[in-house]
């Protein structure tokens, strides 16, 4: 289980696709408040950002989508972003995970 995030740049579709692996470190998992923070942060970027868990891909800008992932403590997620600010977006979101949404 990665303690922090693993930056990983994939060269797909013209180089604007970014993928990050993150782990849910906070004890209660991605419950309402972290989910709100995550969606809020994602909404600041223009890129299309999604979260993948167990093959299920959801919109990172939708708190409801994030909640329906039911990601518990220790869950491994993949963040994907596509767009001009994709790299910055994933940096920002990965920081949230790393800081346990504090």
């Amino acid at each position, binding site marked *: 289980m990665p303690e922090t995030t693993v930056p990983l740049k994939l060269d797909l579709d013209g180089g604007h696709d970014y993928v990050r692996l993150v782990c849910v470190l906070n004890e*209660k998992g991605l*419950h309402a*408040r972290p989910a709100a923070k995550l969606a809020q942060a994602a909404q600041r970027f223009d890129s299309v950002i999604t979260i993948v868990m167990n093959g299920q891909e959801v919109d990172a800008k939708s*708190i*409801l989508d994030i*909640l329906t992932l039911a990601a518990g403590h220790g869950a491994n997620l993949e963040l994907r972003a596509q767009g001009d600010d994709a790299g910055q977006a994933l940096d920002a979101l990965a920081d949230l995970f790393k800081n346990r949404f504090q």
Partner: protein
Amino acid sequence: MALATLTGIPISAGIAIGKAFFLNRSLFGQIPRHTLPVDQVEQEAQRLREAFAKGQAELAAIRERVPAELEEHALIIDSHLMIMRDPKLQGSAMNHLMSLRINAEWALEKAVADLEEAFDALDDPYFRERLQDVRLVADRVRSQLMDQKVDFRTLGSRAVLLAHDLTPADTVELQVDKIMGFATMQGGKTSHTGILAKSLGIPAVVGVVGMEEAVQDGSLVVVDGIKGLVVVEPTEEELARYGDLKYQFESYRVGITKNCHLPGETIDGYRIKVKANIELYEEVAQVIDNGGDGIGLFRTEYAYLNRVNLPGEEELFENYRDLADILAPRRVILRTLDLGADKFMAHFGRLEEQNPALGMRAIRFCLRHKDLFRTQIRAILRASVVGNVSLMFPMISGLKEIRQSVNLLRECQQELSREGLAYNPEMPVGMMVELPSAVMTAEIMAKEVDFFSIGTNDLIQYSLGIDRTNRHVSYLYQPLHPAVVRSIKHVVDAAHQAGIECNLCGEMASDPFCVPILMGMQIDAISLNPQTIPGIKHLIRQATMDDCKKLLKQVLESPTVARTNQLVRETIFQKFPDQLSYFYSLLDSEEGPSQ
């Protein structure tokens, strides 16, 4: 401030947040549903957008008013704001409106239903319950659409059941899995509602005054089963606070449940059996899941209620046998019928009784109607070949009653032998000690039976001469009254001198302030509702017998209830400061006569 905060008696711990649903009141208020002509669709879409915008503005304004020290609550409001802006809610409602050409209220309802499906599919209860947040947000938008505080009467899966009182029959017909909490106007701590709620593990408050006037069907209510409150139409802040409390309580419960299968043993190695009180076969799973050391009290009355005919021997035998079988090798103590004449009017005719609590009930009734009694005793005897069954007689007041009862049991044994029906001749036979007369003669009684079980609910009432369901005097219901503590001690000592076990069933067994005192008396077993077993076991496992004995000594020296309660509170609070708020205590209503 909430619209109203009503007080009652907390009976089953936990927090429920949901829509009020009055039993026996009409429930469905209609959400308008109609289709639209093509030229009105855009106008309706605009109405929906505005409702969302207004709802957001309303929430944002509330968010602004949250004081800085309540930042935690603000975060919940933030998440509601996020939900309100979420494409999955507003976008989906808009899609329904446009594609189906339906009115905004209906479209919103459909969007919520879509989300319901997504959330209901989740395994984790925390995430599943976030649907409640979605509903709260949708309600806010809907109230904008309908331009009023609407009462939403659809009984969804988040109902809080309100009733005058609940009967066993109600509980059979209700889909209890859909009910988040109970609040009733009638009832005391030992009422059926409470027993039921505890066995289902859902929050409940009973004896709530003024509920019918203050609560509408569909009102948003919080049932605080820890403090005994019903909060009607809470504010956003109150709701946030209760959301937190609910989360904390549930986390605590998960924590203690993990360890509930460990023995109820003190740090210094003293073991106390922690058993369950139940009345339904269905509750067995709860007993096992919560780590109960068997059944200390099986209330056998249920099979006799809500029916025209009396149950026959075969039916009872099968019930008891199944119970013993599934719980084996755990011990199951079956208490013979503890009902009054009023319950059997159809069969035995009505008795005019001025005071049924002091009247023809329990063992007195059974000894009067020996055929009924014999049928039950035979059924228990026959079930005793399976598992680990014991029998006990309720409300024994003196030597004559216990001897009559035991003689009847011997007769039944002889009959069974003659008929070639198997029974266990060694089945332990005990008696309930719940009358002051039995306490005073405990040394004599101990020679007649294999075990005692102290029924504290009745013992307190009969010792102190009060009816605890009577609001005017219920403040006198004092489990740590010196007379009660001394009575219990006397009975435990008498049992041990005679070399028999002493059990205790009654609400005291689930009270964190009383249990250490009982432990100090070296009680052999306590028996309580299954839900409370993990918490009480957890306390036992953190205590030492040494401390319990010291506390008991101080309690016995204390001349007044007030002094005792203060002493016990201080001692226990010091020991378990973080856990006590999750229990409700019998000591909480000590102040004085209510108005």
